[in-house]
């Protein structure tokens, strides 16, 4: 019983991290039709910035987190205007290559300044404590992650359903030519979407550092994982990303707990079968 509970708690926390990092990737893929292999780089840069601020400059964790996310958002705006705007127009292969190039430069930059070892984030001591739920104890960190994930989900839902920007965004995902002809300023929608996605990736990277440790190779190490969430959830779908993240988080955790050694094989075989059967993902539509 307690094993099942552990799997569920760890799996859901893991899934929330995957969701925060991947949802931006899913929306940009659905909207701009871009395969952005550098998306995980935003999570890395967020984590590296927090590492720098907390361990080298003695900034407290929460302000460091906010500053890091802001910095990543600004950087993403810059990259969008300089590079990504052109990459949208490339074919699939060109996008893969250009974004691999970008991620290589991100990795090399982090390594140049911080080295290639695991970068600890100066998390508050309270993160590592356990809280007693009566029937079992739960690491406080897991709780923070799960609650943050739910906040992000709710925030995205409000943004997509209740704001004018959300209407524009959904219209553009649905049919960008039609959206542009309706007078929606798609370049601005693209820019804002890209920046939000990058910012969320940074949040996910920072909060998830305990489960997916921050180090220079981070974006390549977990790239496949993030892309799998997107392909399983279906491009451009927030709810699809959420369901896929939680599902994959629990599946992967269960695999590790119940079938140690075979967990990874089981995980990837399951994904390969699923994608072969449903090439557009769980909630994806035919392209």
């Amino acid at each position, binding site marked *: 019983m307690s094993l099942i509970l552990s799997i569920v708690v760890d799996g859901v926390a893991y899934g929330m991290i995957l969701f925060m990092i991947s949802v931006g990737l899913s929306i940009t*893929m659905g909207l701009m039709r871009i*395969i952005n292999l550098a998306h995980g780089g935003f999570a890395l840069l967020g984590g590296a910035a927090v590492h720098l601020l907390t361990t080298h400059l003695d900034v407290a964790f929460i302000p460091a987190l906010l500053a890091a996310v802001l910095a990543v958002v600004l950087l993403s705006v810059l990259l969008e205007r300089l*590079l990504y705007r*052109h*990459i949208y127009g*490339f074919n*699939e*292969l*060109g996008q*893969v*290559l*250009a974004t*691999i*190039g*970008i*991620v*290589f*430069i991100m*990795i*090399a*930059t982090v*390594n*140049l300044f911080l080295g*290639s070892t695991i970068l600890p984030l100066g998390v508050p001591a309270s993160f590592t404590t356990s809280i007693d739920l009566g029937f079992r104890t739960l690491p406080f960190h897991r709780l923070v992650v799960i609650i943050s994930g739910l906040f992000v989900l709710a925030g995205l839902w409000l943004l997509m359903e209740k704001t004018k920007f959300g209407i524009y965004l959904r219209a553009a995902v649905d049919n960008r030519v039609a959206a542009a002809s309706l007078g929606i300023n798609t370049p601005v929608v693209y820019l804002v979407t890209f920046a939000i996605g990058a910012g969320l990736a940074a949040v996910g990277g920072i909060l998830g550092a305990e489960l997916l440790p921050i180090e*220079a190779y981070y974006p*390549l190490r977990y790239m*496949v994982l993030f*892309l*799998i969430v997107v*392909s399983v959830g279906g*491009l451009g779908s927030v709810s699809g990303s959420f369901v896929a993240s939680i599902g994959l988080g629990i599946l992967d955790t269960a695999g590790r707990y119940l079938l140690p*050694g*075979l967990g*990874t*094989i089981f995980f*990837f*075989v399951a*994904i*390969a079968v699923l*994608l*072969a059967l449903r*090439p*557009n993902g769980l909630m994806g539509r035919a392209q």
Partner: protein
Amino acid sequence: MTTPVLSSSPRRAATSLSVLLPSVCVLAGAALAFLMFPYDLSFLTRIVIMMIFVVSFDLILGQAGIATLGHAAMYGCGAYAAGLIALHLSPDPILGLAIGAVAGAVMAWISGLILLRTHGITLLMISIAMTMVLQEAASQARWLTGGADGLAGITVSPLLGLFEFDFVGQVAFIYSVSVLAGVLLLCQILISSPFGLALRGIEGSASRMRAIGTPVYRRKVTVYVIAGAIAGIAGALTAQVTGLVGIEVFNFSLSADVMVMLILGGAGRLYGALIGTLLFMVVHHLAASVDPFNWLFVIGFMLILVVFVLPKGLISLPTRVTQLLRRT
């Protein structure tokens, strides 16, 4: 229905010579390199083996337009197969190559049946996932593969029973170059064949190929199996020449590197594959000897430059430059 007859056009003699051209160029270049860098033969051999691997990838990406990020799967299977044969059955190098080719082809056939039904991002994902499954399987099956330690101490008997593999690596180099020349000849014949033309048709427009009655899926599986066999040969060569096979043969970065090398040189042309590999390997060697991470700066900027400025690769550089000059 007319029965096809083989023509004997006057161009035939000239064109059959042009089939030999890439192989001849490679042999000449290799002879030159052999004389100029007699102490770097093991590095040169690595380049030659990589060329075989990249040429095999050109068949599927450059000719048929199938973009995958899991080409290391076939390379790795070939390497393990050749390593295991040499350790347990027979040290003959040619037999090892043949077994490596079969292993690569079988892997390509099994994975291709699933992969080639999909397109775009799904295809990329499944190809990555399959390679990861293989890596995990290789790391778990310790009794067979030695797990994370890999297979060590692979030795092969003298080539054709005559030439002992020496310490300097002369025999290994000549052996690899001969295999590359053979592979290039095969690829050149394939490219100028009806099958090769059909592949370029599939790359150009699969829907049109269907409309003229081509079984597109079957053609794709066929070329995937051929490319898999060649990739398996490259893996087998690596195992024989280095004496080692580890789970890194299934690394994602290997599949990515192969794609980068091909695009750098220019996909769809055999010379592009060769030039891209040479440049990538040499720059890698120089940059990595300073600091392995510096290398990522170099390759990152190179990639962005190629995609933005030279989408057809370095091989298109001369035409591109003349284009630019003419415009100004």
